[in-house]
Structures are given as C-alpha cells and as structure tokens.
C-alpha cells in the first residue's frame, strides 16, 4: 500500500517570501519570483539580473512566444508541457505560442514545495500547480493593465483570450506581442498580493483537462531533441567505464594499461576515488572517441579485491531472507492484528504459498551518461537527471569543490524510471575530466548499466499462509 509523504506547506513555501515581478528584459517580458524588494521595481530588477537574480519562470518575447522554464526532469511524462499548460490557462495565451526549456540546477528553479530539484513520485503537477497558476495569472493581470492604459478603457471591460486582449465595446484589440513591444507591462506583486489573486475555478478552465499536443514531441520525431548523451563540447574526449565483478565494495588493486596503450587515441585509465561508495572499484578508460574508449576499456587488465560482498549472490540473498523469516523473535510487523496462531489452530484448512521475484533493474533506453567540463572555477555538468540538487552536490564531492561551483545543465531524459535519481555517472565524468584536463563524456555500455544499477532487490522470500474457515 502506498502512503504519501506528508508535505508541510508552511515550512517549505519559500516563494511566500518572494515578490513576483513582471518586467521588461532583453528578451521581451520576463515573469518570475524574486527576493528583490518590491519598491525597487520590476524593470530595474530584470535589467540587472546579476544583482537581483530573479527566477524567470517564463518570458514573453516581442513576437508573442511564451517560453516556460521547467525545473523538473522530463523523462517522457511531458511535465514541461504540463507546466506550460498550467501557466497558459491563467495567462490566457494561445497554446500554439507556448514553448518550453529546461532549467539549470540554480536553486531559483527549485520546486516551490520541496525546496529542491527532484522529480519523482508523480508529485510535480500537484506541488507546482498553485505557483504556476499564480505566475500565469500575474502575467495576465500585468498585460491587461497595460492594455487598458494603452486603449484608455477600464480593465474590467477587457477580455483575454488566445494571446490577445480585446475590448468588445470599442472593438479594440492588442496581442500579447503588441503589449510586450509597448514596454508598458510592468508590475510587481507582493507576496500578499500574489496570494490574493483569484484563480480560475475549474468550471472556467479551457486548457486544463484538455488534451493538448505536447510541446516536446515534434523534436522527438526528427532527431533534434537533445539528450545528455547528445552533448558535444569543443575538445571533448570520451570515457568508457570498466566495472568490477562486485556491485559494492570492491577496490582496484592494480591497472595494467600496456595493451590499452596500443589502442589509437587512448589517453588514460582513471581509477575512481568515490566517497559516496556507489562506484567502488570503477576505472574509466579515456580516449579520443567512444569506439576507441571501448576498445581501450576491453584491453585494460585490472585486478580487484572483491571486498566484503565478493561472495554475495542471488542464492545467498535468498538464503538470508529465508533465515530471517524463520526467526520468531526478530523482524518487524507492518500489521499485527488479532491472534493468528489461534486462528490457524482452529482453521478448517490452511493454505500456504511461497513467492519470490528477481533482482530488478530500471534499464532506461538511453545509457547512463554525463559530460563534465571545468571552465575557470566552475564545473559544468551535462546530464539528464531527476535529482539535480543532489547530483550537483555529488559532482562537487567528486571534484573536491563546494557545490556552488557546479552548474548542472538539464537535458531531456531518455527514460528515468527512478534510475536517474542517482548520480553515480557524475563521478566518472568529473574525475576523468579532472585527470585528463579536458571535457569528458562518459557513456556506460549496456552491460555496465545492466550490472551496476541501483537494483530493486529480489523480494526476499514471501511466504503466505491463509487459514480458511468452514463455510457456515
């Protein structure tokens, strides 16, 4: 039975202390939350983003295109389109004008409820609905007030629909593009003002509850969608991981690269030093191309100490599960209700069955990968990942720097399934890049992925007994 984690709204609602700004920026109209005090005004804040750093959740360009920045990982659930749909509903834009882009790990794009960038649990829509709705509504209000001023008519007489604001009485109309170009849509909402915005009631919805074409789909029919594995950086080289025969706890005793050195383009074999213990005993073969990195990886002769789990197998896990289950004096009850021993004793018939399942792997189709580049003091990491906040910190740990020096560049995910909540792939990319002094793209082989997952454990040994009473 699933039980939902309880969300403490009061504690996590970071945005409640933030001002919402609508102001003119270089790219058109920018709309987002800011910690900047309201009295400074929106235009100044957006004009000096390096000082005030407002989080631009969406922008409207002078051609009327509305671009929503999605702080969620899109792994095929089309959450980026959903965020756009929520904003579009309150903003009153035409769906054909909506676009999406993916955010970096900058905390300004954190989930307003969770206070981090993590995608999972089917939580994204529920937890972002209110903030995105208010962002959309605030944009509509600012645009409407600007239109009213331009037309010289009362705000209350204006109708917003399909990216245009019209005044039916006078038949005047302005598109969002016209208003953005006028530069007059500037407004600041205090947290209380934002909270007081009356959102649409569901009976007024025209976008929500309607099936709309998902915004990422065209790019996924012509090869232009960029996944982590598609990142190309100048001077980049490639890494192929060599993994030990034991999932956790192995260490590398020695690496003989004499044969690998005969592979053209081979650069170096890098043994990982991973404090998170998720890539224990891993080596990265780095070469000028991935084909050569694979050849070099195959040519490395590595000897391992298998560590404490060297003897672990499916059989030993199952034996341990059975041993634990046979113990009467330990373990944990999820439910303890009534006297089962007595009930079995008086049952007309007792039925028993035993169940087990295999170790289960996630196996997204896009092999695990990450690309790491050090530019000045900043590590740039390119990878499709479900937990940018934590993955950035793990990349920082692998590099030996403070997490504030790591920028995670989110990409489309070729499947997530929870596998990309983990950050193991950051470690080989960062440490290989550090050693060879060049950007490195590490790509796991399918074999690496299948053997080195964070697997769902085999479901131990489930023994079910049922006492059946005689029908009365």
């Amino acid at each position, binding site marked *: 039975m699933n039980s939902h984690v309880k969300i403490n709204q009061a504690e996590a609602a970071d945005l409640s202390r933030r001002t919402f700004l609508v102001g003119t920026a270089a790219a058109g109209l920018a709309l987002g939350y800011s910690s900047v005090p309201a009295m400074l005004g929106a235009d100044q804040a957006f004009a000096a983003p390096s000082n005030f750093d407002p989080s631009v959740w969406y922008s409207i360009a002078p051609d009327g295109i509305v671009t929503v920045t999605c702080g969620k990982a899109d*792994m*095929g*659930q*089309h959450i980026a389109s959903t965020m756009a749909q929520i904003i579009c509903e309150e903003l009153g834009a035409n769906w054909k004008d909506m676009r999406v882009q993916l955010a970096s790990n900058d905390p300004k794009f954190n989930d307003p409820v969770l206070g981090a960038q993590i995608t999972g649990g089917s939580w994204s829509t529920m937890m972002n609905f209110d903030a995105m709705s208010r962002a959309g509504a605030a944009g509509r209000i600012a645009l409407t007030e600007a239109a009213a001023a331009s037309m010289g008519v009362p705000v209350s007489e204006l109708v917003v629909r399909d990216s245009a604001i019209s005044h039916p009485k006078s038949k005047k109309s302005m598109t969002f593009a016209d208003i953005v170009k006028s530069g007059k849509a500037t407004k600041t909402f205090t947290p209380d003002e934002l909270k007081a915005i009356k959102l649409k009631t569901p009976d007024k919805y025209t976008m929500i509850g309607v099936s709309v*074409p*998902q915004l*990422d*789909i*065209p*790019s*996924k*029919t*012509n*090869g*232009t*969608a*960029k*996944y982590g*594995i*598609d990142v*190309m950086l100048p001077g980049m080289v*490639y890494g192929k991981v060599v993994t030990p025969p034991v999932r956790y706890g192995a260490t590398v005793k020695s690496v003989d690269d004499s044969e690998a050195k005969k592979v*053209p383009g081979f650069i170096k074999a890098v043994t990982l030093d991973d404090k998170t213990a998720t890539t224990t005993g891993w080596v990265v073969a780095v070469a000028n*191309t*991935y*084909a050569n990195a*694979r050849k070099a990886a195959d040519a490395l002769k590595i000897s391992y100490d298998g560590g404490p789990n060297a003897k672990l197998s499916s059989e030993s896990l199952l034996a341990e599960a059975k041993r634990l289950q046979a113990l009467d004096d330990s373990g944990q009850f999820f439910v303890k209700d009534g006297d089962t021993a007595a009930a079995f004793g008086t049952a007309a018939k007792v039925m028993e069955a035993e169940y087990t399942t295999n170790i289960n792997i996630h*196996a*997204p*189709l*896009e*092999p695990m990968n990450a690309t790491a580049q050090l530019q000045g003091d900043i590590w740039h990491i390119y990878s499709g990942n479900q937990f940018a906040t934590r993955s950035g910190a793990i990349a920082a740990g692998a590099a030996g720097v403070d997490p504030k020096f790591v920028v995670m560049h989110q990409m*489309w*995910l*070729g*499947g*997530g*399934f929870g596998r990309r909540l983990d950050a193991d792939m950051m470690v080989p990319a960062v440490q290989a890049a550090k050693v060879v002094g060049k950007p490195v793209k590490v*790509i796991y*082989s*399918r074999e690496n992925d299948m053997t080195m997952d964070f697997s769902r454990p085999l479901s131990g040994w489930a023994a079910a007994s049922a006492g059946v009473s005689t029908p009365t």
Partner: protein
Amino acid sequence: MPVLNINGRNMSVEAANDTPLLWAIREQLQMTGTKFGCGAGLCGACTVHINGEAVRSCQTSVSDAAGKKITTIEGLSAKGDHPLQKAWIAEQVPQCGYCQSGQIMQAAALLAKNSNPTKEEVIDHMDGNLCRCMTYSRIQKAIMRAASEMRTASNAATERRPT
C-alpha cells in the same frame, strides 16, 4: 579515410574501418538523432537505412557502409514532414522519445515497400525495436495512419495523371 554518403552528401570520416557506423554518424558528423541503446543489435535505437534497408548502425562497420546510400532520421524528409513523422505527431507517440528515431526509420523501410501493411506485418517488421516507455500501441496506430495517408496521396497523384 572512408567516405560515407549520408542523406545525399558525401562526407569523409576519420575512423578505423571497423568503427561502428553509429559512432561515425554521432561523433564525427555530430548527427545525434541516431541513438546508442545497446551496442549489440538488440534494441533498434540506432536504426538507419542503407540502400533503403533498415539496418542497425551499431552492428555495421564504416567500411561496410562506405559507397552505399545511408539515410538517417535527419535525412528522412527535408522538413521533418515524412508521413510517418506527421503521423507520429498526430498520434502523440513519443514519451521519452529516445527510441523513436529508430522506430520511425524502421517503419519507413516497411512503408517504402508496402504502403498497405496488415497489423501483423507491422508487428512483425517492428518486432526488434524496443520502447522502454511502452508506446507500442501508438506506434502501430501511427504507422497505419501514415500508410493510409501515403495511399491517399498516391491515389491522388494517379488520378491527376493525364490519360
């Protein structure tokens, strides 16, 4: 240096003869629409056309592909408007989308030869292309839609022909 004819253009690649075509396309030519999924010919994500046949580019060496006509997802149509690509959008097929270049290329090889396939023929032909998001039913619908559109277009062209 092998010369590859890709999407109607000759391009020379710096790669050993035994390099899989997949990596030459992705890394040397930086055409990333063709995907790496398994490297063993088991998933179909790397499917391209060679002389009109759907092949797994991870299992095809650069030397075997040289001198032949190679088509990737980027070259399937000039504007991404092949009937299959339009049908893929109409049926909203992709989820994560990672397998879809390969799915479309695999399907295109079928429809080039048979614009009126049965459901069984479609399933049989698409059998080796895996989708971890399970978009199979929409893939089938989209192929049927594209086939129907191609037949309509072809009939219209026939009718316009002077008698």
